[in-house]
């Protein structure tokens, strides 16, 4: 059986930022997050980050029905889960205690 290294859990800066942005809202879609982040999140990488966070259970998503006049695919709205909020709280707390570690 492969040996797994025990590591201190970390929250990457981008994921922390996404959780911060989502924490105070009722949901945002990818490009809204990019716009709200003031260029700290990139359009090409935001979806991969959101996908990973959804896998971890930090966020959840639902489909928004597209307006009939535009057609196209429905947008995906992302929301922070209770787990995501707790992780963000814990991470913020850790960042205050150990700023060098959480950077």
């Amino acid at each position: 059986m492969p040996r797994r290294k025990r590591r201190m859990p970390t929250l990457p800066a981008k994921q922390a930022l996404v959780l911060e942005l989502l924490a105070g809202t009722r949901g945002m879609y990818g490009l809204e997050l990019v716009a709200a982040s003031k260029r700290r999140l990139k359009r090409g990488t935001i979806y991969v980050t959101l996908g990973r966070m959804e896998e971890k259970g930090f966020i959840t998503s639902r489909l928004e029905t597209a307006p009939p006049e535009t057609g196209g695919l429905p947008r995906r709205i992302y929301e922070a889960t209770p787990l995501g909020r707790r992780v963000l709280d814990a991470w913020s707390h850790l960042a205050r205690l150990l700023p060098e570690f959480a950077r």
Partner: protein
Amino acid sequence: MTRHGGQPLPGSRLREWASRICRATAMTRLIDPVIADLQSEYAEAASRKQVWRSRWIRFTGYVAFWKVIGLHATARAWPLTREWAAADDHALGRTLAFSCVATGIVTMVLMYPPLSQIVRYAKDGRQAGWLLLFLLPQAIAFTLPIGVAIGIVCGLRGRAATRRTWRSIVTISVVCCALMLVTIAWISPAGNQAFRETLAGRPQPKGSNELTLGELRTSGPRFLYHQRWAMSFATLALGPFAFGLSAWMRGRFRSIVIGFIASVVYFLLVRFFFVVAFTTPQTGWPPPFIAVWTPNIIFILVTVLLMRTRVHI
């Protein structure tokens, strides 16, 4: 569904293409959100008649799509390569490393005798360097198959002969076969011609060894044309043979020595059948095509024999 003003909405075709290669989860989590945002933003700009803005949105959306595809492919491929390496007990990596080292050593050994001649005839060190470089492709045509064979027996030493290892070895052999073809068909003749012209100091007419594969097909000796093709497949004959040998001898040290001797025997056979093909016009038999392919056929038959008798992969 995805039409806007008679035109397909941007990203529809990309999505269709992505759906063929990506899993359903990747489509839901990555591809569809990119396309959905692109289409919504584009439709919004188009409805406001912002032509340039809609073009810009389309462009940035496409860039984002390819970035997502690239990141997703990298994320998927990285564990796969690690799994592959672990599953074949790092045989592929070991084989490649040993093949490179063995090819380098055999090339140096093979280049040493002409080096002393070159130093004698060259005007200065710079010319000697160029002459040596022009001879290198000719040497590699011999040393690469030997290096690959030794690399395989060294790389597989102490490793189990599995189907995955077999596939790795065949992949290496096929890639080296393509390299050999390029070297023998084009690089080596060009190197030979450059060598002769540099040494003579003036343009020289091409001999049969300086003709490329295409030129040989139309104007050169027929047996030489077939021989170049046959030589290109040397790694494909020696690679699987080395695998069979290693598995047959269960990776013992002796397999390395035998692998080296077999490679040398292969080239002795190549030389022998080259002479046979050369003399075919006088003797009338065997046809040059058969003669030059005989060493490859012999080694493939021996490989099949080794695999059938001892190897259970």
